[in-house]
């Protein structure tokens, strides 16, 4: 077999390679335009909630505890006006086999791969998902390759990513490490073609459906504990799967009054494909460098149609600072006796600020934690930042400039709410849809799809379309 392995040749075989590696015929759900039948895709290509619960319980995934953070709540109340300060709860997803909620996504993907007879699975991820796929593959007896963006051009890697390499290897996976750049996708395609393994993408219908159990379980446990639904659920937002899956699960539990709030770490100004910027960030996930592009154009993913569509579900999107997340990670350790990884505490940081604008009898559930350890802990991450010339200081977190400094709040009351304007994100999503499909005119079907996909209304979508000079036929 003498196939052309050049960059352009492999990229041009993308659709053919992907079809073999996922086993989903996405054309079944297409309309020929911007719209596609999202719910039908989730129904027919995914699994029902009951099936997923059965799959996950088979590998010890899920049923993680909800813990009330009494001391952090008390601290928030000390910073809040009288009568304010909602009760903060956390769902301890670090209790999953691979140490994060990603086990839920991986359990489904690996189950599906095995059912379809694949010999192995491949996932492109530098994060917790790699550990999750490797762990699940070990249980299923499948081979596993994890492709990581890991080092800069001097072979220096983020301690957090180096730890992910170690843990994936501990679960018996092969880890292919790459330097910085979007051509990771090229290597990924070559590996899929070479091995014939299953693409355990983060963005398939079954991957996203795997997270639905988290939202569903959270509501059920909360009802059992407090006899009511939580007022708000806080979700760390990166690629969109955590928000989408959790929110769908909340809806399936019938808790339709719950406000779904996303949170990301502010990494604005750092270029995600820059060799130099790569090691100047202290968060490798849960940040705006993924959160905003994936919200405003989900179909940039490694599958033709992304099952993670966060704008459909977000009621609010909050931005936190690196220094604030490290601060709250310390608070979780020394005030609650729960030591967890910083990236997973992104939404807890937002919850700490958000609780202060809510009444004392209201409740917030932070829906994840992640494991911690060497590399994946505030200490190595901050000392790595210092080695890279990042200034570390105390002060007002609003003065933090990603890549230049990390500002720890000099007092907890300095942790603030920063709303990212969702209508801006929605408008840019609509623009991306129009531009990527090169449309000057769309039909009613596409118009309705855009309304749903942006969780918006006719008036708003129409105003953006008018601005773009796009007509509805």
């Amino acid at each position: 077999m003498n196939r052309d392995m050049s960059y352009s040749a492999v990229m041009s075989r993308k659709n053919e390679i992907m079809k073999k590696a996922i086993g989903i015929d996405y054309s079944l759900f297409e309309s020929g335009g911007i719209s596609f039948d999202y719910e039908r895709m989730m129904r027919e290509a995914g699994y029902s909630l009951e099936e997923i619960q059965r799959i996950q319980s088979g590998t010890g995934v899920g049923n993680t505890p909800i813990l009330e953070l009494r001391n952090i709540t008390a601290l928030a109340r000390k910073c809040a006006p009288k009568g304010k300060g909602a009760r903060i709860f956390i769902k301890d997803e670090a209790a999953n086999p691979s140490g994060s909620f990603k086990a839920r996504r991986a359990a489904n993907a690996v189950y599906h791969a095995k059912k379809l007879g694949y010999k192995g699975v491949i996932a492109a991820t530098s994060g917790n998902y790699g550990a999750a796929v490797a762990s699940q593959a070990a249980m299923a007896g499948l081979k596993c390759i994890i492709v990581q963006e890991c080092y800069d051009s001097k072979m220096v890697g983020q301690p957090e990513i180096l730890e992910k390499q170690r843990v994936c290897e501990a679960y018996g996976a092969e880890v292919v490490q790459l330097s910085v750049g979007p051509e990771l996708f090229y290597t990924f395609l070559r590996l899929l073609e070479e091995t014939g393994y299953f693409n355990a993408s983060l963005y398939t219908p079954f991957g996203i459906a795997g997270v639905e159990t988290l939202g569903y379980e959270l509501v059920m446990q909360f009802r059992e504990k407090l006899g009511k639904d939580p007022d708000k659920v806080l979700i760390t937002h990166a690629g969109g799967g955590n928000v989408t899956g959790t929110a769908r699960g909340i809806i399936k539990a019938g808790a339709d009054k719950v406000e779904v709030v996303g949170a990301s770490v502010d990494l604005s100004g750092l270029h995600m494909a820059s060799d130099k910027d790569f090691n100047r960030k202290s968060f490798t996930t849960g940040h705006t460098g993924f959160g905003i592009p994936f919200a405003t154009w989900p179909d940039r993913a490694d599958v033709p149609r992304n099952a993670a569509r966060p704008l459909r579900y977000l009621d609010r999107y909050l931005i936190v600072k690196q220094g604030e997340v490290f601060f709250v990670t310390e608070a979780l350790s020394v005030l609650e006796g729960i030591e967890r990884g910083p990236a997973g505490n992104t939404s807890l940081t937002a919850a700490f600020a958000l609780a202060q604008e809510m009444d004392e009898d209201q409740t917030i559930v932070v829906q994840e934690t992640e494991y911690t350890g060497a590399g994946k802990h505030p200490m190595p991450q901050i000392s790595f930042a210092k080695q890279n010339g990042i200034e570390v200081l105390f002060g007002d977190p609003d003065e933090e400039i990603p890549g230049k400094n990390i500002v720890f709040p000099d007092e907890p009351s300095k942790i603030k709410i920063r709303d990212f304007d969702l209508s801006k994100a929605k408008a840019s999503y609509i623009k991306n849809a129009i531009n990527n499909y090169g449309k000057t005119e769309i039909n009613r079907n596409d118009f309705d799809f855009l309304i749903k996909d942006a969780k918006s209304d006719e008036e708003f979508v129409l105003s953006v379309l008018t601005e773009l000079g796009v007509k509805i036929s």
Partner: protein
Amino acid sequence: MVRKGDWVQIHQIVLKPEERAAHLPEDTKKVPLELWVKGFALEDGKIGDEIEIQTVTGRKVKGELLKVNPRYIHDFGDYVPELTKIDMQLKEIAFGGGKDE
């Protein structure tokens, strides 16, 4: 000297700077896309030689021999005194019995 069967890490240039994708930031454009992977050496060799390895999934890959029994280098980093300062402040506010009590 590396013996056949040793656990090693190899290095490859996947794309030279001129072969890389369009629209990369200037700094990334100037450097190659590199790859590192570990496996069992399929032949004897010394550091810097081009050798073939077999990975844990059974794939055969060629590349420049970089390390034998590569160790994990990440740890808990240098001590960060700022974190202790945060811890002490948090405990003081939460449990210290300050003027709010």
